[in-house]
C-alpha cells in the first residue's frame, strides 16, 4: 500500500514541478498547491499505513493508527491554505496593477545602466 501511495505522491510532485515551471501565474499557484498535496500524502504514508482503528480512544480497540502524522498534516494543511490564499490575492492584485499574468514579463529590479 505504501508503494502505491509513494508512486502517487511522485506523480503529484512531477505534475507540480511541470506546473510551477510554466509562465502563467495561475498555473504556478495550482502547482504549489499540488505540491503541498503530494507532500501531505507522503507525510501520511511515511508514518506507516498499517491497519488500525482511528485514533479516538475506545474501550475495546486494540490497535490504533499513528496519530502524530495526522496532527502534523493538519498543521501543514492550514499553513499551506493560508499561504495559498495570500498568494492568490497577490496574483489578483498584481494582475490588476501590472496588467499581465506572464511571469516572464515581470522584471522588477532595474538593471545597472552604464
Amino acid at each position: 500500500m505504501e508503494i502505491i501511495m509513494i508512486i502517487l505522491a511522485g506523480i503529484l510532485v512531477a505534475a507540480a514541478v511541470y506546473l510551477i515551471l510554466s509562465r502563467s501565474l495561475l498555473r504556478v499557484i495550482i502547482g504549489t498547491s499540488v505540491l503541498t498535496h503530494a507532500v501531505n500524502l507522503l507525510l501520511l504514508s511515511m508514518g506507516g499505513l498499517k491497519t488500525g482503528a482511528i485514533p479516538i480512544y475506545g474501550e475495546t480497540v486494540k490497535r490504533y493508527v499513528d496519530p502524530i502524522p495526522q496532527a502534523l498534516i493538519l498543521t501543514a494543511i492550514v499553513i499551506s491554505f493560508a499561504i495559498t490564499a495570500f498568494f492568490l490575492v497577490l496574483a489578483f492584485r498584481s494582475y490588476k496593477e501590472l496588467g499581465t499574468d506572464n511571469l516572464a514579463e515581470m522584471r522588477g529590479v532595474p538593471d545597472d545602466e552604464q
Partner: protein
Amino acid sequence: MMSNSLVLPIVIPAIIAIILIFIGKQPVIKRIIAFAGMFITAVCAAFNLINIKQHGIQMLELGSWQIPYSITLSVDLLSAAFVFTSSVIMLLIIVYSYQSISIERERYYYYASVMFMLAGLNGAFSTGDIFNLFVFFEVFLMSSYVLMIIGGTKIQLQESIKYILVNVISSSFFVLAIAMLYSVVGSLNMADISLKLAKIENNSIITICAVMFIFVFATKAGMFPLYFWLPHAYYAPPIPILTMFGALLTKVGIYAIMRTYPLFFRTEVVENILLTLAILTIIFGCIGALAYRDMKKIVIYNIMIAVGVIIAGVSILTTDSMLGAIYYIFHDIIIKAALFMLIGIIIHITGETAYDRSGGLIKKYPVLGWTFFIATLSLAGIPPLSGFYGKYYIVKALLSENHVLSAIIVLVSSLIVLYSVIRIFINVFWGEPSTAVKHAPYSKMMVVSCLMTLLAVTFGIYADYLFPLFHEAAVTITDPSQYTQIMEVK
C-alpha cells in the same frame, strides 16, 4: 519556574502584535506600544541569556508532558544569544522606521507584522522540536511576505511573487524532509532524534535526509546554487524592512544548519557538501558585489559572502571553526544592519541608489561619512574592529584541517568586501558635491545608525569579554552530548 521565562521572548511580541492589530489608525500610539513591547522583549531575552550563562542549558516542557512526547523549548547559549541579538536589532529597527517607513505603511499593520516576525524568529531560535521549527519558520516567513508586499508598489508586487514561490517550495521540501526523518527514527524531538540516529547503522538514508535538510536551509540562507531569489527579492522592500531581512532572515537558515548538522548528520559526505557550497557561495557573492553600482545590490551580495564564510566555518565543526562562525554570525548581524541603515540614510538624502550619481557628501554630512567609513572597515575585518576575530578563527581552523584553498578564498573575499564598500564611500562622500540634496529629516535614523555602528565597534573591542560566552556556545554545538543529556536525565 525559572525556565518558564523561556517563553517570554516568543509570547510578548505575539501579544503586542495582537494588541497592535486592534489599534486603528494612530501611528504615534502604535510606535510607542511597539517600542515598549520590543524593549520588554529585549530585557526578557537578556535575563534569559544571563540565566543560561550561569546555569547551563535550560529546557521547558510545554504543557508538562514528558520530554520526547511534548514540544520542548531547549535553549542553550547560542539560542539565547540569538534571541537577545534579534530582539535588540528589531528594537533599533523600530526606531529607525519612525522616519523612514511612510505613514501609509505604518497605518497598514507594519508594526504588527514586525512583532509577529520577531515572535517567529525567537521561536525558531529557541525550539527543541523539528516540526515546531517548521511552524516557527512559517510564522516569520508569513510576516516577511506581508512586510515584503506592504505598500504595494509595482516592484514589490513582482518580486514578492518570486519570493513567496521560492519559499513555498522550500517549505514543502521541509515537510518532506521531516516526513523522511520521522519514518527513519519515529521521533520529532531534536535531542531524541540525535540519540536515535546515532544508533542507526544504515548511513545512506541519513545522508539523503541530510541533503534534503541542507537544500531547505540553504534556500532560506541564500547559499549557492539556491541564492538566485535573494538579490532581487531583497531589492524590492523599503530600507527598514530590507535591514531586518538582510540582518536576520538569512541567519535563521544558518542557525538551522548549525543546529541540525552537528546533532543529526555529522558525516564526512555532508561536511564536504557544505564546505564546497560555502566556498562557491563566497565566490558568487564576490562576483555580485563587484559587478554592480547600486549600493543596495552591493550590500545584498555582501550578505551572501558572509553566509558563505559562516557556513565554511560551520562545516568543519572543530571548536575553533565553530567559535569563529559564532563570532562572525553575530558580527555580521550587527554590521549588516548598520550598513543597510547608513545606506538608507544616504538614499534618503540623495534620492539615488547608484553610488556614482552623487558625491561630496562629506562636507555637509561628516558624521554620516565617518560612521560609514568605520562600518566599512568593520565589515572587512580590520583588526580592532569586530569582523576580525571571526574570520581569524575560521581561517585558522581551515588551515589546520588542510583546506588551504578555502582559507585563501576566505581571505581574498575580505579584500573584495572591503573594495566593494569602500567604493561606495569614495564615490559618495569624496569628490565634487552634487547639487541634488534633499532636506528630509533624518535625525532619528542617524542616531540609530550610529548606535548600531557603536555596537559593532564595542563588539570588536570587547571581544575578549565575549570570548568565554562564545567558546562555551561553540563547545555545546560541537559536542552535542550536553544538548542530548537533557533526554538522558529523564
